[in-house]
């Protein structure tokens, strides 16, 4: 077991290193941070620009391999370098990870729980009206991309607020910095409503999980061990939840583990549309701002998350499925 884990860790480290290095090389060769300084009024002398870019390790006059070496030796000691205007990438990342976490944790979990519950319920009530309604709405929701759904919700809220004459639900930003204490907390929760809805019902949330869960549950319901559980006198509810649902949970749990891992960088659209400044929005902003070091840092972080998620999903499956633990 220990040997297997070590081997796996070594492969993962190599994959992260390759992904981050490639991202750095791609960004460093194609992006032009100099542009942000060149067009200024009054003009900045070239020597000053060079000195500034040198200090940030962004100067395109330095050979790219040399810049890469500087960057890589920084990353090994845990320093991701400077942003295009001299801020620390580490500080920025430390701030944005928490923004993403606050934004996405609730939505991801709510989507999973609601999706699994609806899927399992509609499997038990197969071909009844409720099953059909859930199935059709999940299918339609699956066809609506996140950016359309999020925009639709924002439009709806805007019209609702205008109709009411006051702001019932906020639709942009993370919080109102003028408030403090209890009001601040309520304000933050208010700002969370829309992003949470858009994350939890759509393609990456309840609609997706309910479809997987329904299929798995249908497979399990017909099997002997569920009948045995009922035959030995368990109540239907207990048999369904403890015996059927637990087994049928394995695939959705695998997806859920991946969703948790990729959560930090996966919500680019939700973050951009609702103007939260998290990791996903950072990637888009950094690409637009020619911010080489930030792009590489987000990529590094995303690769670590994906691989950690793979590991997490294996652990979850092992916890839910005794057969995996034995073999």
């Amino acid at each position, binding site marked *: 077991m220990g040997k297997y884990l070590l081997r796996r860790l070594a492969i993962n480290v190599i994959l992260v290193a*390759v*992904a981050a290095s490639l991202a750095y090389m791609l960004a460093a060769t194609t992006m032009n941070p100099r542009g942000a300084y060149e067009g200024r009024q009054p003009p900045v002398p070239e020597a000053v620009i060079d000195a500034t870019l040198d200090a940030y390790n962004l100067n395109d006059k330095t050979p790219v391999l040399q810049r890469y070496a500087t960057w890589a030796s920084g990353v090994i000691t845990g320093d991701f370098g400077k942003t295009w205007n001299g801020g620390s990438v580490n500080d920025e990342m430390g701030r944005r990870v928490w923004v993403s976490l606050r934004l996405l944790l609730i939505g991801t979990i709510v989507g999973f729980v609601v999706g699994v519950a609806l899927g399992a319920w509609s499997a038990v009530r197969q071909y009844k009206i409720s099953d059909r309604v859930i199935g059709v709405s999940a299918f339609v929701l699956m*066809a609506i*991309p996140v950016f359309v759904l999020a925009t*639709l919700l924002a439009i709806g809220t805007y019209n609702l607020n205008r109709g009411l004459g006051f702001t019932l639900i906020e639709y942009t930003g993370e919080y109102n910095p003028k408030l403090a204490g209890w009001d601040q907390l309520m304000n933050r929760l208010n700002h969370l409503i829309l992003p949470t809805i858009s994350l939890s019902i759509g393609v990456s949330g309840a609609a997706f999980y309910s479809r997987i869960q329904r299929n798995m549950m249908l497979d399990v319901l017909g099997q002997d061990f569920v009948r045995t559980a009922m035959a030995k006198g368990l109540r239907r509810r207990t048999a369904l939840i403890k015996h059927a649902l637990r087994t049928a949970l394995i695939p959705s749990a695998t997806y859920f583990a991946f969703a948790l891992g990729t959560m930090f960088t996966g919500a680019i*659209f939700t973050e951009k549309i609702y103007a939260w400044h998290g990791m996903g929005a950072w990637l888009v902003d950094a*690409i637009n701002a020619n911010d080489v070091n930030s792009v590489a840092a987000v990529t590094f972080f995303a690769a670590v998350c*994906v691989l950690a998620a793979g590991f997490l999903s294996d652990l979850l499956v092992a916890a839910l499925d005794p057969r995996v633990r034995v073999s």
Partner: protein
Amino acid sequence: MRSKVVLRRLFRNPQARYGIIAFVLLVALAYIGPYFGSYEWTEKDFMAFLSPPDADHWWGTTSIGQDMYAITLRGMQKSIVIGVLVALIATGLAAVVGAFAGYFGGWLDRVLMWGVDLLLVLPSFLILAIVSPRLRDGSWIWFVVLLAAFTWMITSRVVRSMTISLREREYVQAAVYMGIPRWKIIFRHIVPNLSSLLIIDATLNVSGAVVGEAALSFFGFGIQPPDVSLGTLIAEGSRNATGYPWLFAFPAGMLVLLVLSVNLIGDGLRDALDPGSNS
């Protein structure tokens, strides 16, 4: 004939029937519809900026006087072409790589699967976002190739594991002893036996690619102006969606209908080709 049986099953399935009808109608709208509109997609009506839908401009106009009907249909053409091409390339690549890796095994398998792992870890969004705006000179075909290059990996893993079990079948063994070259066996005996998986995968890839293109174009990383796609139109429309809903509603509605119809076909195909599965 199996293909006849499958087709009959497909048309008996109401989901698939509606999906196919809707998809055919949408394609017809995209390609024949422009002949009925009174404006070209390149035309600008300087007498009507941001006018709501009326008898002259059926779906309204944009802030520079383009006819929404013409421009949405033009965007739809591009989205459909991109979706179909990406699906064909991605599924073809998945079939070839997966079948070769699974059939030959050994070092070829290891190298190919290592490549698959690497592509899965690589930041596809970043690479597409950086590279595609730099292909400015109208070569959206490169965008298609890039999009396909990041779509095929998981299917190729499935193809590989199915190939490993097909390799031991009698008819494949028989072909080997008849002295048929290995690559011919793969294309004549292995790949056709994976066709149900591949057809379903290609169908679902179409909707995946349409959404993927729209998503990248939403940030300006996909199709570059002056060319339009549903993604660029939705991006533009969503900026002013509260005041000028027709800018957002028509392209977004078309995108959702397109994806929905393709998904319906994909689901119906799965039922028709693989009656045992209920997924």
